[in-house]
Every structure is written in structure tokens, then in C-alpha cells.
């Protein structure tokens, strides 16, 4: 591995975080409206407003606020909540862990179902199996996640099929079964679109790989078809899927807001909605920034996975 390259990538990642935090700062601070007014209500006296602004540091010049904010982001210090006065990092941390659990389960579901289905569709190309899988994935692609979430809620949380709880969260330490029981429905709801997307990507890249000349070489060596599929095609055909998975992670971070709200799941998404409601600026800023940073990291991880899958790809060359 090329350390110069890793160092460079790290610098780029920091630059990306800086850019995103600047954008977040601009959007949340420079929008018209006075935060102190929101907190105190319209009837507040001017002294009271000034007092609150001083408390929150909002009376300082914009560039000082900006430096303070960005510096805070880089040290993972997002200030205190306007509403509860609690440090934001303390508030966001447990929620982030829960959201990441949701994302991980959702991601696992799409990996273990979409990739094998995509491979089957590619191997049985243009047969009824392929058509069935492809058509179903079209339907998946066209159903927005809030629709599938609502449908799942209606179908599986109320009689006659009361299979899952309506929402909430149970920690992993209370047992895997109850944990998964609460996670499964929101994870599936998040998945419908991604799953279809990953499946189609896997299918098309596998089809392309199976038509390549080295697959022909393998078959003409007398290699059995199953070994052609998993020994020769799999690793090469998976590469574009990794990209799609990393990009989908970002998409998931957006979808999480709606899904968590629908399933009353106490994660970052729910916190964003609460923060918007109460104009809790520091919480809102952190709740937007943290998933973004997670997304940047996910893409970096994908780049490293490439080099493991394809020896032709080396970092930095």
C-alpha cells in the first residue's frame, strides 16, 4: 500500500469535511431569521433577545462564529443544544450508533440477497428466472421507501399479521432476537430501492464479465460452469457493485430521516426532525454533518476494497 497516497487521501477527506461543514454553517446560520427570537417566541423583549444571543455566542462576528464552528467539527465538538443545554456530541453519539446498526442490517440484507440474485439472473440470462428477477427489481426500484415503509407497517404490525413491533429500538445487549425483531422492518423498508439497484448492477456487470474472453478461456480449459461463475467471474464482476454499495450508503443516510420517523426509531434521522422542529441549531448541524462524514469514510473504504478485489488497481497510480 502506498502511504503517500493514503496521506493524500486523508488530506482530501479533511478538505471534504471542511467544505461540507462550511456549507452547513452557511445554510443554518446565514438564513434569515433570528435564532433567539425562535427560542424566546415573538413576544420577547430586546434585552432578553440580546441576552440569549450573547449566551449562544451569536453576537460575535460571523467569521469568528465560522472558525469556532469548523474548529469544533474537526475536534468533534458541536457545542451545546439550545434546547436542553446538553453537549451535542453526547446526544448524537448513541443515536448514531443506532442508525449505523440500522444501516448495517439494511446493507447486509441487500448484500446477501441482491448479489446472489443478480448472479443467478446473469447466469440464467434471458430465461424465465432472469425475467422474473429483473421484473421484480423494476417494481422495487419504482416504489419510494416511505411508501414501502407504510405498506410494511400496515401489513405486518397489525392483526391479522402482527409479526413485528410497530417501532422502537431494543439494544443488542438485550438479545439478538429482540434486537433484530425491531430492526428488520425498517431495514427492509430502506432496502427496496437499494436492493433492486444493487441487483441490477450485479446482473449487468456479471453478464458483461461472463461474455469476456478470459471466461471463454476458462470454459475452453474444461472448467465446470459453477466454477467458471464463482472461481473466475465473481471477483471481477463484483467491482462495480462495490461502488454502488458505497454510493447507496450515502443514499441510506438520507432515507433514514423518513424511515426512522415512520418507525419511531430513535436514531439520527429522528433527531434531525426534532431539531428542525425546535430550531435547535447545533443539534441540526451535527445531525447533518455526522452522516456526511460517515459517507465520505464509506467511499474511502470502497476504494480500498477495490484494490483487494482487483490486483490491477493500486492506490495512487
Amino acid at each position: 500500500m502506498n502511504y503517500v497516497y493514503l496521506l493524500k487521501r486523508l488530506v482530501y477527506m479533511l478538505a471534504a469535511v471542511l467544505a461540507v461543514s462550511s456549507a452547513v454553517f452557511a445554510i443554518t446560520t446565514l438564513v434569515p431569521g433570528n435564532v433567539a427570537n425562535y427560542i424566546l417566541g415573538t413576544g420577547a423583549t430586546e434585552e432578553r433577545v440580546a441576552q440569549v444571543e450573547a449566551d449562544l455566542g451569536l453576537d460575535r462576528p460571523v467569521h469568528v462564529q465560522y472558525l469556532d464552528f469548523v474548529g469544533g467539527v474537526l475536534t468533534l465538538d458541536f457545542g451545546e443544544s439550545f434546547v436542553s443545554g446538553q453537549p451535542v456530541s453526547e446526544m448524537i453519539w448513541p443515536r448514531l450508533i443506532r442508525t449505523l446498526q440500522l444501516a448495517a442490517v439494511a446493507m447486509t440484507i441487500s448484500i446477501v440477497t441482491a448479489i446472489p440474485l443478480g448472479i443467478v439472473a446473469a447466469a440464467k440470462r434471458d430465461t424465465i428466472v432472469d425475467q422474473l428477477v429483473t421484473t421484480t427489481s423494476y417494481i422495487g426500484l419504482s416504489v419510494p421507501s416511505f411508501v414501502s415503509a407504510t405498506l410494511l407497517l400496515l401489513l405486518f404490525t397489525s392483526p391479522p399479521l402482527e409479526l413485528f413491533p410497530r417501532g422502537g429500538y431494543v439494544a443488542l445487549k438485550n438479545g439478538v432476537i429482540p434486537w433484530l425483531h425491531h430492526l428488520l422492518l425498517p431495514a427492509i423498508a430502506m432496502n427496496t430501492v437499494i436492493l433492486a439497484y444493487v441487483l441490477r448492477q450485479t446482473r449487468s456487470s456479471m453478464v458483461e464479465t461472463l461474455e469476456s474472453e478470459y471466461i471463454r478461456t476458462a470454459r475452453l480449459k474444461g472448467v465446470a460452469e459453477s466454477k467458471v461463475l464463482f472461481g473466475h467471474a465473481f471477483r471481477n464482476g463484483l467491482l462495480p457493485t462495490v461502488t454502488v454499495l458505497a454510493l447507496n450508503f450515502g443514499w441510506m443516510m438520507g432515507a433514514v430521516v423518513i424511515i426512522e420517523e415512520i418507525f419511531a426509531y430513535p436514531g439520527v434521522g429522528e433527531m434531525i426532525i426534532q431539531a428542525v422542529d425546535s430550531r435547535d441549531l447545533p443539534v441540526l448541524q451535527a445531525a447533518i454533518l455526522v452522516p456526511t462524514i460517515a459517507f465520505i469514510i464509506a467511499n474511502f473504504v470502497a476504494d480500498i476494497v477495490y484494490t483487494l478485489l482487483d490486483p490491477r488497481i493500486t492506490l495512487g497510480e
Partner: protein
Amino acid sequence: MTTQRQAERTEQETLLEVDSVDVNFEVPDGQIQALRNVSLEVERGETVGLAGESGSGKSTLAFAIVRYLDANGWVDSGSIRFDGMDMLSASTEQLRSVRGNRIAHVAQNPGSSLNPSMRIGKQIRESVELHQNPDSKAAANERVYEVLDQVDLPDPEGMAERYPHELSGGQQQRAMLAVGLSCNPDLLILDEPTTGLDVTTQAKFLDLLEELKSEYDAGILLITHNLGVIAEIADRVNLLYAGEMLESGPVESVFTDPANPYTQALLATTPEMDADKKIRPIPGQIPELDDIPPGCIFADRCEYATENCRTGEVPMETVDSATGHESRCHYWSDVIGSTAELETETETERTHGEAVMTIDSLRKYYDEGSLLTNLLTDHDPVKAVNDVSLTIHESEAVGLVGESGCGKSTLGRTLLKLHEATGGSIRYDDRDIDELSRSELNEFRSECQIIFQDPEGSLNPSRTVREILARPLKLFTDLGAEGRAERTEELLGQVNLGANIVGKKPHELSGGQQQRVAIARAFAARPSLIVLDEPVSSLDVSVQASILNLLKNLCVEYGTAYLLISHDLSVIEEICDRVAVMYLGEIIETAPTSQVFEPPYHPYTRALLSSIPLLDPETETDRIKLEGDVPEPRDPPTGCSFHTRCPQKIGEECEQSDPSLEDVGGGHCISCHHDTTELDQPIENQKHDDNR
């Protein structure tokens, strides 16, 4: 073929027997017959060549033999027997036990035919484990190393651990061959094994095959469009044309006394080194497979054809039953008698005018690295062009030859300012091109054109021929709409294209037609210099000849200067007045064309010349082998850049001081520490073998 060999042949068993095979494909407009009534035999220990131009069905036949036709294709009639086994009725299981084990198919394009994410060793071991039941992984690996060693790959253990992209093109080809040989096959099918390799690499590969033939008693079916390669190593040859076998027989008889007009025409159109032959294009085009004419398939392009040829089936007739020489022609006895008179070329010394472009100490480096990488790591730039000086005169054709990666294309592009030079100067019309103003640069661009290797890629697919030709006329001339239409017609006439193609788009044209359009476009603005980057290397040999003739005529007609870049010395010899030989970014020899082909030689040029397979199967070439690959241009050798591979290396002097180009007489410049008398002498191959 001697009678002794003949006797051996009858005793030998027939390994592969393809008998009257028809292969059909289902296409959107119906069915096409890709192969019609094709028969072919390969015997044990014999090398059989299968020659033909692109689209003749060579690869289709190979895939039919191993039953690997595309899903829309099938063998419609006939039989394919391999060592007594009926391949056409074989079950999937039977096929799998034959493929890779008894029949090895070595595909073309080794770069894409090896699995990019699997180590070379594993790709070979896979075959061994599948078919040979080795006792252990160690035993299988033993075989892997053995076969890697047999194909002359250095350090077999290390090579086995590498991935395909870590090998050079020649090494990849050897690795493919190693996969094929790993299970001691009875039949080895080599599909265009040397296409895409440099002549020097090709020569080494052919020598290797020659060696392996004695070690393995396999029959070899060698598929290639290169007749020289067949003349070099095959015992018998089959000529396929548009899906039909037109002639087959021993290489000696077919190449010296062709009994089919197609073979004769093909031999006459192939450029040959040093032979003063004027290449003769074959008129017309290969018939389309969906529109096969009745009667003889070659009749439309044949000078012997009569009405008799255009109806009914033309059977394969025996020319010589003793040698098995056959030809599909009514008039084969006339053909064989008229040893096609090859016109010899009359050297016309053309007068060259003023210098059009003068290049002085030109350098072009790539990947110089950012400040950060240069500070933190030991970073060298890639020296693609290193200190090159060259002058091109009006109506002079200068050839630039060298192996792939030697920097010839980079040089061609840099002097048209398509790349920014790193150092040195380029003077055009006595002005430094770096100092041209914007409008002057525009004029420079109109006067200096380039023609690329791949015509399809260089023509805009969404424009018609008319639009393609109108563009430079609009940009670079002040002709009105009417003038442009006239000039377009004139240009198309000059490149021998009918005016009826102006409405067509590039994909509707054949490769040869596309290249003609590209040439017409380049000449549209009456340029004074054209860089031709491998203009014929993607074309079939029959098309090649007509394009080369065309370029020759246009050079005279327009008085344009050419810089013709090619890896093929015989192409350069056809049209160039002067040749520059390039090695690792430097010009190591430059001379009037005729002088390059006679002593004194630069050792590298001598090796290049001896690597070219000759059409005459009886000439034994004393080939000079070059060891190893071209060194990394990032880290070129000290002293003379060729010393690492030079068969005539003197010693330390070559490693330490870089020789300069010196005139050895008559404008023939060589950069070598030897003096001319030593470069005159033929060299002993043995001396080199001792070093191995």
C-alpha cells in the same frame, strides 16, 4: 515436402478431421452461412496453417472444432472428428474432459484472455488439477513451473505469483501458451498467436514454437492472417476466403506455385522486405456473408474468371495427389503455369524541396510527478522522447520505425503540438511553433494533419462523409458551399471512393473505406505535412496495398511531406524515402530507405530486419534474437540505451558512454560504438547463445 516426409504422413494417424462443415448463424435478417463446405485435416506432430483475411471465418472454424460457437451459431452439416471421437455429438461431460486436456485452444488477445484477478500460476494449475489428477498441490505446482520454464519465461516460481497485467504482451502470450501446454494436449489450436506482438517478440515466439514442436508431439492448427508466419513454421496451409476453403496443400507448393488466383493475389499484395516487388492490390471487396454470389466466390475479383465461374458449384480439385495439394478453381492449371508476373518497382528518385519541419533535441517526458511525490519518493519521469533531432522536407516521406513503446507515436503527436514538448525546439516553415500567435497556430493546424491507426475511432460516428469532409474545408479554406461540394467530390475521386458514399456514416463503411475518408479529410486543406500513425496496421493485407499505393500517389500529387509511423518495416519500405529507427525514445539510425536495408547495420535494425518472417518458405533466416524486453523508459539503461539487449555489445564502453549519431556515408547515420567495418560483418548467432 520430401517423399520421405510424405511416407511418414501416410503412416501417421489423422488427429483432427473436419469434413464438409457448414456453420450457420441466426442474425436479425435471417441466416448467414459463415462456413460452407469446409474440410481440413491435422495429423499428429504436424503444423497446419489456416490463413485468410478478417471475416473469412478462421476463428469460427476454431470455435466450431471445440464446440464453442456463439449461442446463435451451429454446425449445420458435416462432421468434426477428433482422434476418432465425434465432436458434434459429444456430451457436455465429454467436451469438458477434452477441452484444455486433449485440445488446447490458445485464444488471441492474451491480455484479455487471461483472468485479470488470478495469478498466472493458479490459471495454469487449474488446468493441471482438472485433468491430470496430481497427487498434491506441490506436484501440480511442479508442472506449472516446468511448463513456464518450457515457454521460456524467466524465473518460473516468481512468474507464477504474478498477475497478468504485470507481464509484457509477449510474456502474456507465453503464459497463454503455457496454459495450453500444461496438460500435454494432442491438438493445439493457436488463434492469431502473434498478432499484436512486435516483430522481435513475434520472432522469439515463433522460435519457441519451433522448439516446442519437437518436445510435444502435438498437432498444431495455426490460425493467422500473416502469411509470413505460416511460411515460417507451418507444414501445410489452408486458405479460407469468405467462409470457403480455396486452396490447401504443403506450404512449399502453395507459396511457390499457388494454384488458386486468390492465393496468388494475396501473395502479390503482401509487401516483402528487400524484394523489389511492386505490391498489387486485389480489386473489389470480400463478398458479404448475407449475399454470397453463386459459383466461385472469388470470381468478382479474379482476373482468370469467365462466365463459367459464375454459375454452379466449383469443386475442390486435386493439383497434386502425392502432396495433397488442392485448389477450388476451374482454371488452376492456368494459374499454376502463370507464375504471376510481379512487376518490379522502378526506383524513381523524387526531388525534395525545402525543409518543412526541423526538430532539434526534442524531449517529451511524461508523469514528471507532483511536487509532493518528488519530495517524498524517488520519482523519475517517463522519457518517451529523448533528445530527438529530425528534418522533414517538402514532398519527402520519412518513416519512423520501432517496437511498441519506443515513443514513435508520442514524437508524431508532439511535433503537431498535440502534446506540449518538454524541451527542444520544433521549427515549422522556419518559425518556432511555440511562438506562433493564435491565428498562426490555426494556420499551422490546417497545414499539418494527422491520420490515425483506427479510422473508425477517428471519424465522428454521427456525421456523414459529406459533413466530415466539409469540416476542414469550412475551417481552413474560404470556399463557398458550391466550392466545398466540388472539392469534396474531387477528394473522394482522389482516394478512389465513389461520390455515392457522401451520405453514409462511418459505421456503414468498411475499414478500408473509412481510412480513405480519413485520408481525404487530411488532404482537404492541402496540408504541407501529414503525420501517419500506423495508417494500415488495422487493415487487411489486400486493403493495405491499395491504401499504400494511394498514399504514394497523393504524396507526389500534392507534394506533401509525410512522417509515417509504423512498426512494420515492409510498409515503411513501400513508401518512404528516408527511415529513422527509434529505440527507447531516441533515434539510433537514420538513412535513405534503401541504405537501411543493407550493411552497415545498427545492431538493433539488423535484429528488427532479421525478425520479419519471409514469404518464401525455403529461405532459412538467420535470426538474431534479442534477449528480454524493452527496458522501462522511466529508468533507461546508462550509456547506449540498447546495450542491455545488444548482440554485438562491446563491453564497458557501451554501458558508460552514449554514442551519438554519426554519418557513415551518404546521409546514413548510426549511433553505435562499433565502426562501420564491424557493422558490415554478418554476426554469429552462437556468440549470443553462449551468453544465455
